[in-house]
């Protein structure tokens, strides 16, 4: 099994992507709603990732 080295950002984006896909698939009733919800989840994940990243940046001084 090859070893993989990812940065915080890459790992978090991949986590967000797979989680959003499954959340979209299992929550809504129509395909259009699933795509919309999955995309919205992914957007929220990325916004939280970037927001918390900046918060930690400024928190550390």
């Amino acid at each position, binding site marked *: 099994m090859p070893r993989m080295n990812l940065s915080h950002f890459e790992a978090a984006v991949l*986590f967000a992507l*797979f989680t959003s896909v499954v959340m979209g698939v299992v929550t809504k009733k129509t395909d259009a709603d699933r795509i919309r919800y999955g995309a919205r989840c992914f957007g929220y994940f990325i916004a939280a990732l970037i927001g918390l990243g900046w918060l930690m940046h400024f928190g550390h001084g």
Partner: protein
Amino acid sequence: MATTQKIKEPMAPLKDWAPAVGLGWLVPGGGHFLLKRNGRGGLILVSVVAMFLLGLMMRGAMFQPQTGDILTTIIYCGGFIGDLASGLLYLLATWFGYSQPDVAGHVHDYGTKFLVGAGLLNILAMVDAYEIATRKKT
């Protein structure tokens, strides 16, 4: 004063949902395939397998159940259940001798979370398969 009473629905017969939920545990998305939801099953399969394999490649640690104080019990027993929920992926990885000590470093840490996360996503998929099998959802 008005009171509301919840009417408890009888549980659906086991034979209606157990095969889909059981197969969904063993093979991510398997329950959806059994219920002829191939597109959704395929997306679940790809997502859960990719997340689990990335966790292995990042050398994430598998949890072993441990008890002690409440936090230790929740983290280790919950983590073990999360790992186990990946079904065949977890069983194959442990049968083939995957054993990674919990070491410091963000990559290993993400790997551990990816392994648990894959199982948790599979639990969501199993719940969805249950709801489809019992006709609570299309």
